[in-house]
C-alpha cells in the first residue's frame, strides 16, 4: 500500500490480483439521477430519497443482486424487501439455482474444502473449468495441494507434462524429416492412462471441450453436449452392478465407463465438483439430481462427496442469509406479507420475462450484461435503482445510481466461501467520501421508505 493506493498484491489468483490493483479504474464516485433522459450528478441525499420513492411507490418491485456484497448488507436487503413487499432474488437464480432445487429434493453429501485437501484421492471436475474460473482451486484445495493424508500430484503432473512435450517435439521433428505426419492427434482416444490406477491423487475432467483444466487432468472425458444426464445415470447403474444394454453412452464406450466406476469405488475419498455445464444445459436440475444421486449411492461403497463451484464471491452468503431469515435460498416473494418461494414463478428472470414487476433495485450485480436480453429489457423499462461501486452496463441504464464502497477492499464484511465457511473480509483502503458501504446505503433507504409509508398512511 502506498498513499492509500494498492500497489502490489501477493498470494492472490489472477482475478483477485486484477481486482485489487484495478478496482479504482472504472469506479463511480458520484451519485447520479436521470433527468430528461440523461444521468446527472446529484447529492447522496437526493439519490437516496429518489431511490426510496421508487421502491415505496412500487406495487411489485424486484431487489436483485446481492452476491457481490457482504452478509451485513444482505441482511438489510431482506428487511427492505419485506418492508416494500417485493421480490428479493440473488444470482443463484441464473447460476446454481437448479442445483439448489435438486438439493432440496435429494439432499447433498458434502464437506469443507480442507477435508478434500487432507483426504481426497479422486477428484472430478464436471462441466466446470477451475483453471479459468477459480484459478487457485486446484493448488489450494485439490489435486496440487498438500494434505495430512494425501500428497500433491504436482510432481507427477510435471513429469507427465515433460513426457508429453518431449513426445510432441520428437514427433514434430520426425514429421519434418520424413515430410509427413507420423503421430496422429491422440485427442479422442479413450484409453485410461496408468496414472489413474496408482495410489496417489488423480483428477478427471468431464466436459464438452478440452478446457485448460482438462489439459492438466490425469484423464479427460469428452462428453457430447446435453448428454450429461445419460452419462450420470449410466454411472449410477454401473455402481449398482447393473448391466447396460448399450455399447456407448454420450459418445463414450461402456468398457471405459466400467473402468471409471471401478476407480470411483476403489478410491479412499472422492469429490465431484460441478459447474454451470450441468445447470445450464438441457435438463438443468435433472442433471444435478443425477449427480447428487450418484454421489449419494457411492457412499454405500466408499466415501464420496459433491460440491457446486460457485461464482461471485458471496453468492453462497446470499443463499445462507436469505435462508436463515426467510427459510428460502433465493427467489423470495414478500408481496403477501410473508416469504413465498416458487422458482419459475417468483424467480426474477421469469417475473421480468412476463413483465410483472414495476420497479427494480440492483445491488452489486450486472443483469443488463448477464440476463437474457428479453428479460433485461423489462428491467430497464421500469424505474431502476442501482447500488454499485463500479459503472456497469446496468448502472448506465439506471434511473438512480448510488456509488458504494468495495467490500473486501474499502469496507469490511462477512462472506461465505463455496463450501459455506464464513470468512471475514478486511478493509484495506479508505473509500472515497461519497461512497458509503452497501449496508449503510440500504439502511438509509429503508429508513426513508418507512418514513414515506407512514406519511402515506
Amino acid at each position, binding site marked *: 500500500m502506498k498513499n492509500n493506493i494498492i500497489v502490489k498484491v501477493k498470494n492472490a489468483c489472477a*482475478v483477485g490480483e486484477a481486482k485489487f490493483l484495478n478496482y479504482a479504474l472504472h469506479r463511480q464516485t458520484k451519485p447520479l439521477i436521470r433527468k430528461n433522459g440523461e444521468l446527472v450528478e446529484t447529492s447522496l441525499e437526493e439519490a437516496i430519497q429518489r431511490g426510496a420513492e421508487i421502491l415505496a411507490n412500487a406495487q411489485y418491485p424486484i431487489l436483485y443482486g446481492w452476491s457481490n456484497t457482504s452478509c451485513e448488507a444482505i441482511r438489510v436487503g431482506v428487511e427492505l424487501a419485506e418492508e416494500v413487499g417485493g421480490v428479493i432474488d440473488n444470482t443463484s437464480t441464473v447460476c446454481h439455482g437448479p442445483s439448489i*432445487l435438486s438439493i432440496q429434493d435429494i439432499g447433498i453429501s458434502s464437506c469443507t474444502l480442507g477435508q478434500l485437501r487432507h483426504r481426497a484421492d479422486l477428484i472430478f471436475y464436471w462441466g466446470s473449468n477451475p483453471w479459468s474460473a477459480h484459478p487457485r482451486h486446484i493448488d489450494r484445495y485439490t489435486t496440487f495441494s498438500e494434505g495430512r493424508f494425501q500428497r500433491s500430484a504436482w510432481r507427477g503432473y510435471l513429469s507427465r507434462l515433460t513426457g508429453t512435450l518431449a513426445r510432441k517435439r520428437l514427433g514434430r521433428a520426425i514429421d519434418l524429416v520424413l515430410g509427413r505426419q507420423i503421430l496422429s492427434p491422440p485427442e479422442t482416444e479413450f484409453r485410461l492412462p496408468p496414472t489413474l490406477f496408482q495410489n496417489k491423487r488423480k483428477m478427471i475432467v468431464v466436459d464438452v471441450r478440452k478446457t485448460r483444466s482438462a489439459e492438466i487432468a490425469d484423464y479427460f472425458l469428452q462428453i457430447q453436449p446435453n448428454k450429461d444426464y445419460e452419462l450420470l445415470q449410466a454411472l449410477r447403474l454401473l455402481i449398482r452392478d447393473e448391466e447396460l444394454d448399450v455399447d456407448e453412452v454420450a459418445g463414450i464406450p461402456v468398457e471405459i465407463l466400467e473402468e471409471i466406476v471401478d476407480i470411483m469405488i476403489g478410491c479412499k475419498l472422492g469429490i465431484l465438483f460441478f459447474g454451470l455445464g450441468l445447470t445450464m444445459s438441457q435438463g438443468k436440475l435433472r442433471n444435478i439430481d443425477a449427480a447428487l444421486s450418484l454421489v449419494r449411492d457411492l457412499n454405500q461403497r466408499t466415501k464420496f462427496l459433491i460440491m457446486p463451484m460457485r461464482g461471485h464471491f458471496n453468492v453462497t452468503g446470499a443463499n445462507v442469509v436469505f435462508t436463515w431469515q426467510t427459510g428460502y435460498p433465493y427467489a423470495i416473494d414478500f408481496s403477501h406479507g410473508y416469504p413465498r418461494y416458487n422458482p419459475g414463478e417468483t424467480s426474477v428472470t421469469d417475473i421480468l420475462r412476463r413483465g410483472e414487476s414495476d420497479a427494480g433495485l440492483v445491488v452489486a450485480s450486472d443483469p443488463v450484461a448477464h440476463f437474457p436480453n428479453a428479460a433485461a429489457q423489462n428491467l430497464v423499462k421500469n424505474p431502476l435503482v442501482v447500488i454499485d461501486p463500479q459503472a456497469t452496463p446496468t448502472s448506465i441504464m439506471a434511473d438512480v445510481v448510488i456509488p458504494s464502497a468495495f467490500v473486501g477492499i474499502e469496507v469490511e464484511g462477512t462472506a461465505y466461501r463455496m463450501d459455506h465457511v464464513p470468512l471475514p473480509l478486511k478493509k484495506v483502503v479508505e473509500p472515497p467520501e461519497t461512497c458509503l458501504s452497501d449496508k449503510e446505503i440500504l439502511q438509509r433507504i429503508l429508513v426513508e421508505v418507512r418514513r414515506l409509508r407512514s406519511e402515506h398512511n
Partner: protein
Amino acid sequence: MPKLKVYLLTGRTIDQGTGKEYGKLSEEYQKSVSICQMDPEDIKFLKVRENENVKVTTEFGSIIMKVVKSKRAPHPEVVFVPYGPWASVLANPKTHGTGMPSLKGEMAEIEPAPTEKVLNLQELLRTHFRRK
C-alpha cells in the same frame, strides 16, 4: 455464403474474469466478451479467418462477433462465447419452470460478416434496449 449450425456455449474465461476487474465499461472487458471461440475446422468451413467478424443468430437475437481460434479444439460444431452483453443478446430467457434461463447448449447459426463491425457497448445497449 456458407452458414453453420452450432451448439452455443457460454461461460467464463480468465480474460473475461480479469477484464471485468478493469471495469465493465473498459475496452479490455468489451474486447474479452465480444468474441466467439470456434474449432479451426469450423472456421475453415465458413471460409473466414481468425479476427474476422461473423454474425451469430439464435431464435432470440443476432449479433456480430469477432472470431477467435479455439485452443481447446476439437469440438466440431460447438462454439463458445464468454458471459457478457453479447452472449445475453443470444440467450434463451425461458426457464421451463425452474427459474433458470438456458445459457448453454442452445442452437445457433453462424455466417461470415466480413463487412459488418462489432458494436461497442454503448451501441449494443442503444440497439438492443429500448430507451425510456
